């Protein structure tokens, strides 16, 4: 038993607050927009130059001039504004975005994050990930708890230290996996702390599949 992608997204949505400006990464983070509580004002930023991102367009209504950072066609809302890439990343780097929810390959117990390159494989580039983790007020990672290798084995993704090239150091505040939720005291000495278990998951199971040291503070 573990959380589904939708359950992980729903858990991530509990980090939202009324009036928040939020940047969602590709994959599970994108699903978070489906779980914004009714009546809560949350504006989504797309780092290619848009605030107030709407849902996908109806078929036949796609506009090539209106895409998100994943290059997907999207729509505007009454609250929408457009701006340049420089202004967009000024917004990100300047700490004006309240929350960034993104995926990761590895997270270390000190808050280090790796999600952009695997040595020996073709590197596609970091896009806006380094800017987001360095600039946004609060960074939430949503990812599978372990990586599944081609030979059927699994590798932990919550590590003592990342061995992949870093996207940022001391940047992650919260990690949501299919097995549970961890806080990280990224700037302090508090380390990583397990605060929630996914439905039907035991602390023993998490311990077995986690390399990082963590304390336990379940409700």
């Amino acid at each position, binding site marked *: 038993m573990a959380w589904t992608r939708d359950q992980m997204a*729903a858990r991530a*949505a*509990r980090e939202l607050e009324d009036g928040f400006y939020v940047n969602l990464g590709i994959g599970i983070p994108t699903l978070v927009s*489906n*779980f*914004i*509580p*009714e*009546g809560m004002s949350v504006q989504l930023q*797309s*780092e*290619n*130059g*848009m605030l107030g991102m709407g*849902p*996908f*367009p*109806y*078929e*036949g*209504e*796609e506009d*090539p*001039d*209106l*895409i998100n*950072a994943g*290059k*997907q*066609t*999207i729509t*505007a809302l009454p609250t929408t504004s*457009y*701006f*340049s*890439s*420089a202004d*967009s*990343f*000024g917004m990100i*780097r300047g700490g004006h975005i309240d929350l960034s929810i993104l995926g990761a390959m590895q997270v270390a117990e000190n808050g*280090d994050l790796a999600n952009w390159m695997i040595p020996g494989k*073709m*590197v*596609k*580039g*970091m*896009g*806006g*990930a*380094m*800017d987001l983790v*360095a*600039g946004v007020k609060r960074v939430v990672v949503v990812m599978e708890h372990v990586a599944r290798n081609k030979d059927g084995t699994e590798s932990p993704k919550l590590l003592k230290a990342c061995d992949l*090239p*870093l*996207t*940022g*150091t*001391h940047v992650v505040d919260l990690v949501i996996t299919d097995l549970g939720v961890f806080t990280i005291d990224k700037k302090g000495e508090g380390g990583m702390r397990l605060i929630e278990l996914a439905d039907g998951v035991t602390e023993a199971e998490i311990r077995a599949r986690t390399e990082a040291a963590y304390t336990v503070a379940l409700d």
Partner: protein
Amino acid sequence: MKKVYSDATAALADLLRDDMTIMCGGFGLCGIPDELIDAVRASGVKGLTVISNNAGIDGVGLGKLLETRQVAKMISSYVGENKEFARQFLAGELEIEFNPQGTLAERIRAGGAGIPAFFTKTGVGTKVAEGKEVRDFDGEAYVMERGLFADLALVHAHRGDTEGNLAYRMTARNFNPMMATAAAVTVAQVEHLVRPGEIEPDHIHTPGIYIGRIVHVPVREKRIEQRTTRKRAEAAQAAAGGGAV
């Protein structure tokens, strides 16, 4: 001062040379100066350093210059959508300098604004900071990044007047405004060419001073990289039930 040229080839004729540095606006295939890229391809210049957030896709946008091996180096943030790019890179035929997207945008803005260097948190402690000065300000570490300035910038706008004033549309704005400011000569491809005064002066995104030449290229077909849609039924359902966690 006549800025308007009859077509992309005429606008670029005397500006192109081997081994030059060209900035190219756009994000993915959105807001790219495709007709100007075609003219660069047709000119046959090679050894180019191209500064662009992405590298197009196979056969579209900058992908066309990769096919013909006209590009020696790319300065980009993400090039994931291009097989020919991957092939040339892995074969050692193409150099790539990855920049974080925001650092790339700011380096270009800095180049255009006379700022040779600035400090940013982005990339501290990563490969991006290797070989660069890292300095503490108020207890936090920042890496120094340099401004970028090109020989030529190619940009796309929705509307332009004959004075060179430009207005962009939606997310097709992206890197175009900064690039327009950061090159010895900037050439703009506009979908609608209008008379001075037709773009409300408060709505001009790029003042004409930055635009050396302008070409009117009416829209034929704009490519969409990821066509994502919702069905009307789904939407109705979402509207009825949606929102609750």
